[in-house]
């Protein structure tokens, strides 16, 4: 496109648009309250680590929420994969109407704004006493992740040559052994993309966690952050909040930078093949 300087300008614009709000949070988290209120005045105490100290020594300390989200994210990912992998295989190998019907239904479910389900899910949680159990959250999360997971994994199974499985069958391998030793290892890249997308979803999910969790030491990160906001509409402690944002974002930013390829191929393979 056009000349190089124009492109450079566009790149700078894009990156400042994407990162600007985050960098502002970073700046806020290290600024004293005086510096925040009068950014252009000449004051002595401009920088501070107190916001971080407040957040990390709060009750419960901030890392508690990170651990909660980690538990929910990991649990949901494992449960999702355990259920979606066999289902994806079955959809790939069965022919005709079942596959088509299943696929259409999965796409509809993937499009469904799941926030509308929260009330019914809350009633389920109440009657089965699942509220305030971190691992119980993995059940709705695994269910909500099924459409995406099955679509991605079945696309990967479909790409494997059918001869490969026939050869394994001739060797006398049963269904379970074929899956375990031949097919699942071969779709490892698709499994990795699915896993990271499910993990991100579970880590970030808000409405269900909001209604299922009330014990303040069990909150996941998004709920804990929103609770800081809701505690007082007119004076949110922005400095401490920014420090919490920075601490809460670091794991995700690391995840995105490390698993960039998996995330991109996960998000796009659905688009290209579907």
């Amino acid at each position: 496109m056009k000349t190089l300087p124009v492109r450079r300008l566009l790149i700078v614009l894009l990156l400042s648009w994407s990162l600007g709000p985050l960098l502002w949070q970073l700046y806020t988290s290290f600024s004293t309250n005086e510096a925040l209120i009068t950014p252009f005045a000449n004051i002595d105490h401009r920088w501070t680590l107190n916001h971080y100290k407040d957040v990390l020594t709060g009750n419960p300390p901030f890392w508690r929420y990170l651990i909660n989200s980690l538990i929910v994210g990991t649990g949901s990912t494992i449960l999702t994969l355990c259920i979606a992998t066999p289902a994806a295989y079955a959809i790939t190998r069965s022919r005709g109407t079942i596959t088509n019907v299943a696929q259409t239904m999965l796409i509809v479910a993937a499009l469904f704004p799941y926030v509308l389900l929260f009330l019914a899910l809350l009633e389920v949680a109440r009657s089965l006493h699942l509220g305030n159990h971190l691992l119980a959250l993995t059940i709705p999360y695994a269910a909500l992740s099924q459409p995406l997971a099955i679509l991605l994994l079945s696309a990967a199974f479909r790409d494997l040559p059918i001869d490969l499985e026939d050869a394994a069958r001739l060797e006398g391998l049963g269904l379970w052994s074929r899956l375990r030793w031949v097919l699942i290892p071969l779709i490892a890249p698709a499994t990795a993309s699915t896993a990271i997308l499910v993990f991100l979803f579970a880590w970030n999910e808000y409405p269900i966690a909001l209604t299922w969790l009330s014990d303040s030491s069990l909150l996941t990160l998004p709920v804990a952050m929103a609770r800081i906001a809701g505690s007082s509409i007119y004076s949110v402690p922005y400095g401490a909040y920014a420090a919490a944002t920075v601490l809460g974002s670091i794991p995700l930013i690391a995840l995105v930078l490390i698993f960039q390829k998996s995330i991109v191929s996960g998000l796009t393979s659905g688009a290209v093949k579907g």
Partner: protein
Amino acid sequence: MLLLLVPAAVLLAVVFVAPMLHYVWLSAHANSVLTGLVPIPNQGANWLRLVSDQRFWQDAGQTLRFTVVSVSLEVLLALAIALLLDQRWRGRGVARALTLIPWALPTTVMALGWRWIFNTPYGPLNQTASLLGVAPLNILSNPSITWMATVLADVWKTTPFAALILLAGLQTIPTDLYEALRLEGASQRTCFLRITLPLLKPYIALALLFRLAQAFGVFDLVQVMTGGGPASSTESLALYAYINAMRFLDFGYSATVMIGSFILLLLLCLISWSFLIRLQRRTGRV
């Protein structure tokens, strides 16, 4: 073989189908604090109330406005970003990863971040405005402006997703198509209009449809950034359903609002779908 499908099918039925059926049943009952949280059949009173509920229709209008404006902005911006990221330049991979970051962060976290940016009088926007002598800009307390701030926050957060889908589409277009057309002396503009845009259309449709459904169900962003205010001007249908259940403890009516919203979303999807198909037919490609 089909046994392998059973766990997933059961899970999906319990979490997607059962709730919707439950809502249909619940919407035919009065079930609130007034009834002692005991469901009592009320002969469609919930539905009569929904039809004449001004707040419901106002929220429907707001949700529609939010959806249409933010999704169109997102797809346009995503197209520009995808075109930029599709070219070869040093550091492209890193830039692609960095643009993904807003999408990966929890919505609630940055919703509050945006609230801080728009804060009156201490947020950066108003500090800058006061330097220019135009402060205060009461973005989050002016019912006719606040919704634009929520659109901005939504565009910031979800454009990377749409951009990635479009980028995937761009990368399926074979480069010799461009070379062939350029040999005929076509300009870049012609190339874009005659190759890129037509071949990208299915991907644009996909991104549109996905974002349409997600934006229509907007909840996290609005609940945390504005709480639906000021004066319910940014309240979405999902938030209204939530408020009915959790604040007014009127579960029967909340379920009615949810089914109502779901029907409106279906209508919206059908309308945009037939619009896309007609567009496809008129241009006669793909």
